[in-house]
């Protein structure tokens, strides 16, 4: 039993990295634009398909392919923000943005069905099925790489937000859009670029999702979105580090409960979510008071 517990913890932590990569873009976009991008699930799948195309048709390694898919997804993100989110104005902006994001999701899903059909595909590479033997456990290489990528992405986003001029603009916009405008920040530009960055990071999450799942098709995003939303709520809406912590917490809790009862594994996370929110409504790392100023 002790061995199973250690293995479940290792599985959970590594799997958390994959979910963090899928969720950080969602929380970043919420932090700046105050919208819940419910197209995040299909954007993850889109990222996976872009990696699939590069891998299968151009024989480009999955990680090298990120050099192409990340910029491509950035452009897609900026385009989505420009075309669907930016035109929304007025007091119904928040609710309309949900519908706009859902429309985006349906459009992308439809296009993916048209191009790739309903059959499941997977991302393959030698490191997808290989593992390293450490402390008596086989730790899958792809999950180790994924976790390292998640930490690197979170660190890079922190550096971007806290060590650059653009980051200061983003944080100012997060705190008060009106005040940011008054001090000369081009809020529209910040919003578009931030949306682009959020979607660009999702390209990494998409590649990891495609490489670690048993297969994906254009419909696969629906199973993801509720979990990603739960992660960013638990981590604190807008908190990038919180997304990583919450993702690790979720997957570790599930893996541990799996030992005794797989049926309850998913439920446990949501119970924990409710409990945490009851005690700390802004989530583990949320900054509601600052944002409410």
């Amino acid at each position: 039993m002790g061995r199973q517990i250690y293995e479940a913890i290792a599985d959970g932590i590594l799997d958390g990295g994959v979910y963090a990569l899928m969720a950080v873009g969602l929380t970043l976009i919420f932090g700046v634009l105050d919208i819940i991008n419910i197209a995040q699930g299909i954007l993850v799948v889109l990222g996976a398909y872009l990696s699939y195309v590069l891998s299968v048709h151009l024989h480009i390694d999955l990680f090298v392919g990120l050099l192409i898919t990340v910029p491509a997804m950035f452009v897609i993100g900026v385009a989505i923000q420009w075309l669907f989110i930016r035109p929304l104005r007025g007091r119904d902006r928040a609710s309309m943005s949900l519908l706009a994001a859902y429309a985006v999701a349906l459009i992308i899903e439809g296009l993916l069905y048209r191009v790739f059909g309903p059959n499941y595909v997977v991302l393959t590479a030698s490191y997808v099925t290989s593992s390293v033997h450490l402390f008596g456990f086989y730790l899958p290489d792809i999950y180790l790489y994924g976790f390292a990528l998640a930490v690197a992405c979170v660190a890079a986003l922190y550096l971007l937000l806290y060590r650059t001029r653009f980051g200061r603009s983003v944080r100012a916009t997060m705190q008060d859009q009106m005040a940011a405008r008054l001090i000369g920040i081009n809020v529209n530009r910040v919003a578009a670029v931030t949306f682009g960055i959020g979607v660009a990071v999702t390209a990494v999450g998409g590649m990891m999702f495609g490489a670690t799942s048993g297969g994906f098709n254009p419909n696969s995003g629906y199973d993801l979105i509720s979990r990603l939303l739960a992660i960013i709520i638990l981590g604190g809406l807008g908190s990038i580090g919180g997304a990583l912590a919450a993702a690790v917490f979720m997957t570790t809790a599930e893996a541990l409960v799996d030992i005794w009862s797989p049926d309850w594994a998913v439920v446990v996370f949501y119970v924990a979510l409710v409990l945490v929110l009851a005690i700390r409504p802004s989530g583990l790392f949320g900054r509601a008071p600052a944002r409410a100023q």
Partner: protein
Amino acid sequence: MRSNRARLLSLSAAAILAASVAAGCSSSSSGTGPNAKPPILIGASLSLTGDFSTDGQAYERGYDLWAHDVNASGGLLGRKVKLVILNDNSSPTQVDTNYTDLITVHHVDLTFGPFSSLLTAPAAEVAHRYGYAFVEGAGGAALVFSEKLPNVFDVSLPVANELDPLVDWIKSMPASQRPATAAYPMADDPFATPQVQRAQSQLEPLGIKTKYSKVFPEEVPDYAPNADLVAATGAQMVVLGSTDVPTVASFMKAFEQQHYNPKIFIAAAGPDQGGAFTSAVGTGNANGMMVPDAWYPGYPNASSQAMVKEYVAKYGGTASDVNADVAEAYSVGQVTAEAVKATGGTTGSKIISYLHSGVILASVQGPVKFNSLGENVKAIAFVFQWQDGKFVQVLPAAATGSVAIINPKPAWSG
């Protein structure tokens, strides 16, 4: 700001719900050209999107192929057939709405079944309410027959018995050659769970020790933790209660990562999905994987072979790529057509009486004869195995068409 957030969250839930309904209402239809007599309208709800979309779209192809063939040979009772297919988004709630719409709005003459037992059960009740015969090919679980509806007719193999050939094969082995241990991970699904539990109850008395037997939710995005737990048991045989390709592929991937290769690995569903399976797991890793079913593309039946040939000509690929769902759907059409011809019309009560009469009908899956519950008592359970890129029948070993089984399963090889 806080109230805005709360509003956002509640709106997101509402938007998801509303959009799901909207997606479920989307429909597609296919039909034939204009004809002097009005066409016979046949309604079906299929999972063209959602969790069962691979199967649902394969079913659509099966129905389309059958309709095309029937119309090419003059139609039914001198009338062309026209399919009206609505998308249920793999939702048991939407399937209920769709069949109600098909009957009350589209006024279809006949209904064909949806994909999966989960959706067939509610759909059959709607058809029963309006007096329609409900011929289907993917509702073989006990859940479907438990209501004892007189209008349900499943042309395929009853699900609970699907793994019997595997049990019989192991029973036939000398005790020293039988697997000593087994693991039974199962998705919480009316198709997957009963057959695996039945196999477990039959294998345990043979001295095969159960090392793992747990039911996991079907909607789990990541099966790796479950698969790792199975791998840790080191069981010599794995009987996986899966419902689709990703579930099997996830377990296979995790097993390979854990350097665990069971001697026998059979999955309730997934390996039967032709190219959809091999493209997900790789031809090398598919080698030795087994699945129970009643049909395979090499099935020695003239109409089956003609259908496979037609399918490949229309959709491309090879015979091994043809999903068993296609044959199930095609069989639904064949059985219904025989009933319509025999009764001289599309009246539900007459078709129901005819199909309950004990008549033996022909289909691409073999003979069909219904018992009082609507189960096909003529369906024979087989076990199929991937062998060097080919999907072949291996059990029962003495059955016509069976080839030697690969045992133990070869090592993972990508």
